[in-house]
C-alpha cells in the first residue's frame, strides 16, 4: 500500500494532477459557500456550460490560446447571469437553463464542424486531470493565489453580503460590487477548472463541499474552512482512487464527495438529535 502511494507520487503527471486538482477544488469550494447560501448555485452550473461553448469557439478561432479567449467571455456571462438572478428568482432559473443548454449545443456544433470531437473538446466536457501540462499548473497556481487573497481580503464583506444583502446595502456597503467580485472569481475558477474537471463536473466542486460542511458546521467561518479541507481531501482521494482502479478522474472525485456528504448528513442528524434531547431537558 505504502509502496503504491510512493510510486504514484513519483510520477510527474500525478504530482501535477494533485496540485492542480486540489487548488481548483479549493477555489471552487470557497466560492461555493456563498453561491449555495445565496441560492446562486445555478450560476456555477450555467457558467460551466457557457465556458464549454466559449472554449470550443476559442479553440476553433485560435487553437494556441483558448483560455485567453474563453475567460473574458465567461466573465461577461457571469455578470449577465448575476443580473438575471438578482432581478427575478423564478424567471432567472429558466433563463440560466436556456443559456447553459444553448452554449453547450453551440459548443458541440462548433467543435464537430471545425476540429471534430478531438481529445481537447472531450477533456473540456469530461475532464482530464491526468493530462495537465506545466503551463496548466502555473495557471492553476496563479488563479488560486488570486482567489484566496481576494477571498481573505473581502471575507467580512462577502459574509455580510451573503447573510443579508438588503441590510448590507441599507447600511452603506456596496453589495453589488461584492456580488460582482464573487461572480468574477467564479468565472475564473470555472474556466480554468473546466480543463481538468470537465464542464459537467466543475459545478459539483462548487456545490458539494459547501452543502457537506453545512450538515455539521454551525458558524460561517467553520463552514468555509471545512469546505476548503473537504474539497482538497476529496480531490486527492478521488485521484488516488482513479489511479488505483483506473476510473475516470472527475467522476472519482465526485464520488468521494458524495460519500462524504452521506457521512456528514448522518453525523449531523445524530448530533442534532442529541442536542435537541439536551435542550428539551
Amino acid at each position, binding site marked *: 500500500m505504502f509502496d503504491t502511494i510512493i510510486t504514484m507520487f513519483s510520477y510527474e503527471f500525478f504530482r501535477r494532477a494533485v496540485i492542480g486538482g486540489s487548488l481548483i477544488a479549493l477555489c471552487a469550494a470557497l466560492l461555493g459557500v456563498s453561491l449555495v*447560501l445565496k*441560492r446562486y448555485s445555478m450560476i456555477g452550473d450555467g457558467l460551466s456550460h457557457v465556458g464549454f461553448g466559449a472554449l470550443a469557439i476559442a479553440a476553433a478561432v485560435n487553437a494556441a490560446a483558448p483560455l485567453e479567449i474563453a475567460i473574458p467571455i465567461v466573465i461577461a456571462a457571469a455578470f449577465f447571469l448575476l443580473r438575471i438572478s438578482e432581478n427575478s428568482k423564478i424567471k432567472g432559473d429558466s433563463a440560466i437553463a436556456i443559456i447553459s443548454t444553448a452554449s453547450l449545443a453551440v459548443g458541440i456544433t462548433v467543435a464537430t464542424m471545425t476540429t471534430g470531437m478531438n481529445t481537447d473538446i472531450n477533456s473540456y466536457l469530461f475532464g482530464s486531470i491526468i493530462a495537465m501540462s506545466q503551463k496548466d499548473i502555473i495557471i492553476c497556481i496563479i488563479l488560486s493565489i488570486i482567489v484566496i487573497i481576494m477571498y*481573505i*481580503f*473581502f*471575507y*467580512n*464583506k462577502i*459574509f*455580510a453580503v451573503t*447573510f*443579508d444583502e*438588503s*441590510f*448590507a*446595502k*441599507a*447600511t*452603506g*456597503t456596496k453589495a453589488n460590487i461584492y456580488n460582482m467580485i464573487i461572480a468574477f472569481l467564479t468565472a475564473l475558477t470555472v474556466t480554468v477548472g473546466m480543463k481538468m474537471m470537465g464542464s459537467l463536473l466543475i459545478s459539483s466542486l462548487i456545490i458539494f463541499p459547501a452543502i457537506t460542511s*453545512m450538515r455539521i*458546521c*454551525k*458558524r*460561517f*467561518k467553520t*463552514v468555509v474552512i471545512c469546505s476548503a479541507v473537504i474539497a482538497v481531501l476529496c480531490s486527492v482521494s478521488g485521484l488516488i482512487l482513479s489511479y488505483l482502479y483506473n476510473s475516470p478522474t472527475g467522476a472519482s472525485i465526485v464520488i468521494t464527495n458524495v460519500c462524504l456528504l452521506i457521512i456528514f448528513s448522518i453525523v449531523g442528524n445524530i448530533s442534532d438529535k442529541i*442536542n435537541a434531547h439536551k435542550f428539551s431537558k
Partner: protein
Amino acid sequence: MALIKCENVSFSYENTSVIKNLNFEVNQGDYLCIVGENGSGKSTLIKGILGLKSAADGKITRGDGLKKNETGYLPQQTPAQKDFPASVYEVVLSGRLNSRGLKPFYSKTDKQSAIDNIKRLNIEHLAKRSYRDLSGGQQQRVLLARALCASKKILLLDEPVTGLDPIVTDDMYQLIEELNKKENITIIMVSHDIKSSVKYASHILHLNGDKTFFGTTDDYIKSPVGKYFFAEDIQHV
C-alpha cells in the same frame, strides 16, 4: 435642515400603486412611528428611505450630512436567512462593517462594540450558538444587536417586537427609548401596536390610503384618524 425629507413621494410595484403623494420629514432626534394596516406600504416606505427601492415619483432627500453608513436597520424577517450557518457573534459583528470602509478586518473597537450590544440585548448566553438554531424572538434580538452596531445617527426598525413575548417587548421599547433620549439617535419604527407608538413616539405617520396622517403624537391623538384608531385599540386591550 431635515435629516430625511419626503416630498410628494409615490411607490409602486409593476404599476400597482402602493403609496401616493406622501409628504413628511424627520429631524435629528425625532422618534417617528409608522403605523397602518397590513399591506398599507410601511415596509415599502422603509425600503424607500433606505434606498433599497426607488420611488416611482417625488423626492427623498437626506440632509444634515447623513451618510448611508451611519444608518442601522432591522428588517422585517425574511424566511430565506433563517437556516443560515452563522454564529450569533458573527451576525452581530457584521453590523460593524459600515465603519470599516475599505479596511478588510475588524478592529478591537468593532469587536468590543459587538460584545457590548450582545450584552445590551441580554443574549450573551447565545453568542456562540448558531443563528439558525434560535427561536424567532431570539433571532429578532440578534438582528437588533446587529442594527445597533451599525447605527451612528439613525435607526430604522420594521416591526421590531413581532414574535417577542411581553417582557422582552417592554425591554425592547425601553432600550429604543434610551437610544433616542441618551444617544440622540433618530428612530423610525414600523409598528402594529398603536398604543405603544403613541406612548413613545414624538411623531406619527399613519398610512391609510387618502387619509394619511403625519404630525406630532399630540396632534395625532386629537385628529379624527388618531381618535378612531387609538380609541379602538384601547377598547381591544
